[in-house]
């Protein structure tokens, strides 16, 4: 009989707080990944819906962007609630990535060097599920790019804080940038397609009554987010969103810090 080093043998003498103790397990890591995924998915959906204001004109979307800083109204100091949300999102993003990274390493180790000669015949795994790691990395790189592009304005001299409308137009008017947005959002939609189904399994939300609806939910939410997010670069490229009659910087003065 072989003996193996069990988890107990390697446990520190002093126990970690229970949530960290739990995080040592893969099943719990997946659970935390699913919970953080739900938070991120909710954000992505809200972000896409909010950006629809782009189609109502510069006034609407710039006002929307500014009112995000006023979230909480008079109850909290200006931008505080926004910062709490930003910190929460960053934490969810970080924990999602850390869990993915450590599970991926563990999985590759468990698989070992694949010796199969015959290529695997996948029966259930689809392109989205097999490329989660890649689509995840693409989304991470894209988020950094997207923040640099439209939140920090690193890439353009025309970038004006608060003039969301013009910033979006100036960014996505260049076709290479539009292409980056399109490619990244296709990757994002694939990631969401597998993730949105997967989270039900991981959280143990399973009931024969609605099990079929889970796949349809994943299809629907991934499809909606894909269509919504792709519409922005396509609308700018197609001329639906343009700067006719827009005075650069005018909104900056009105809504500035």
């Amino acid at each position, binding site marked *: *009989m*072989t003996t*193996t*080093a*069990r*988890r107990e043998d390697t446990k520190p003498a002093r126990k970690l707080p*229970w949530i960290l*103790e*739990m995080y040592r*397990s*893969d*099943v*719990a*890591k*997946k*659970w935390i990944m699913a919970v953080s995924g739900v938070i991120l998915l909710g954000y992505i959906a809200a972000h896409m819906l909010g950006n629809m204001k782009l189609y109502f004109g510069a006034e609407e979307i710039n006002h929307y962007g500014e009112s995000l800083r006023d979230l909480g109204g008079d109850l909290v100091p200006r931008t505080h609630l926004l910062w709490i949300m930003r910190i929460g999102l960053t934490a969810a993003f970080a924990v999602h990535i850390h869990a993915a990274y450590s*599970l991926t390493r*563990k*999985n590759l*180790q*468990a*698989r*070992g060097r*694949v*010796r*199969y*000669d*015959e*290529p*695997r*015949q*996948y*029966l*259930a*795994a689809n392109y989205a*599920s*097999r490329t*989660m790691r890649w689509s995840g990395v693409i989304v991470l790189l894209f988020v950094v790019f997207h923040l640099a592009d439209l939140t920090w304005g690193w890439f353009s001299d025309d970038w004006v804080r608060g003039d969301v409308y013009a910033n979006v137009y100036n960014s996505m008017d260049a076709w290479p940038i539009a292409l980056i947005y399109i490619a990244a959002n296709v990757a994002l939609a694939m990631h969401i397609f*597998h993730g949105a*189904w*997967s989270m*039900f*399994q*991981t*959280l*143990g*939300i*399973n009931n*024969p009554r609605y*099990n079929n609806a889970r796949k349809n939910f994943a299809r629907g939410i991934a499809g909606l987010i894909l269509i919504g997010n792709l519409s922005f670069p396509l609308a700018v490229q197609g001329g639906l969103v343009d700067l006719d009659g827009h005075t650069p910087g005018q909104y900056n003065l009105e809504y500035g810090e």
Partner: protein
Amino acid sequence: MSKMLNLKLKIWRQNGPHAQGSFLEVDAHDIPEDASFLEMLDVVNERLIADDVEPVTFGHDCREGICGTCGVMINGQAHGPEKGTATCQLHMRKFNDGDEIVIEPWQATSFPILKDLMVDRRAFDRIVEAGGYISAPTGTAPDANEIPIPKEVADTSMDAAACIGCGACVAACPNSAAQLFTSAKLHHLNTLPQGQPERWKRTEAMVETMEDFFGSCTNHGECHEACPKEISLDFIAFMNKDYVKSKIKNRSLASKR
């Protein structure tokens, strides 16, 4: 008189866990289409012995699909192309004359190759040892039907208990995860009244033992497709739910401070 097949076989040969392996290419001529896959290997081995070549080692026992010993990778599919069928129950009539068949052992770090197509699946025994049992007090056997069990519960428990522990789920999984096996063993006992007293302890122990050996689930669903007993992915969701529930409950810590 049954039809005869002429096949080209590529069989993995390896002397031990750390030996360098290679493919043996054999022309298997005149194989009756009514032969089972293992009978075909028997015929090939008889011929190898006659030619003074060491026969190919493969695991087999009951040859009626209930012992779980015989799994091999056939053309990149665990237990071959027939759904819900173990290698021993797969018949040569599922192949065509002139086919090339690639036969490989299970792939996973925790399933080291003993010889040729036979792998060491004792990691599964460690998982079952950790909690795949109920503790019954000694004494006279309880009367039949003393514990009422709803029909649905008995059925779902039996569906899980159908798992023969062959390891196809691990071999089919891109992460070499043993979630389908472990969740079947858990569901089998966790749904029955007799399994309740040790339910949470069992779930934690078996999941954590599983994680000592195998990868984590990424919800591809390949395991279910490969499973000769068609064990449902639903059991994985139930296991995830029970594990996190048990961790959060922390019952064992109550009144300890």
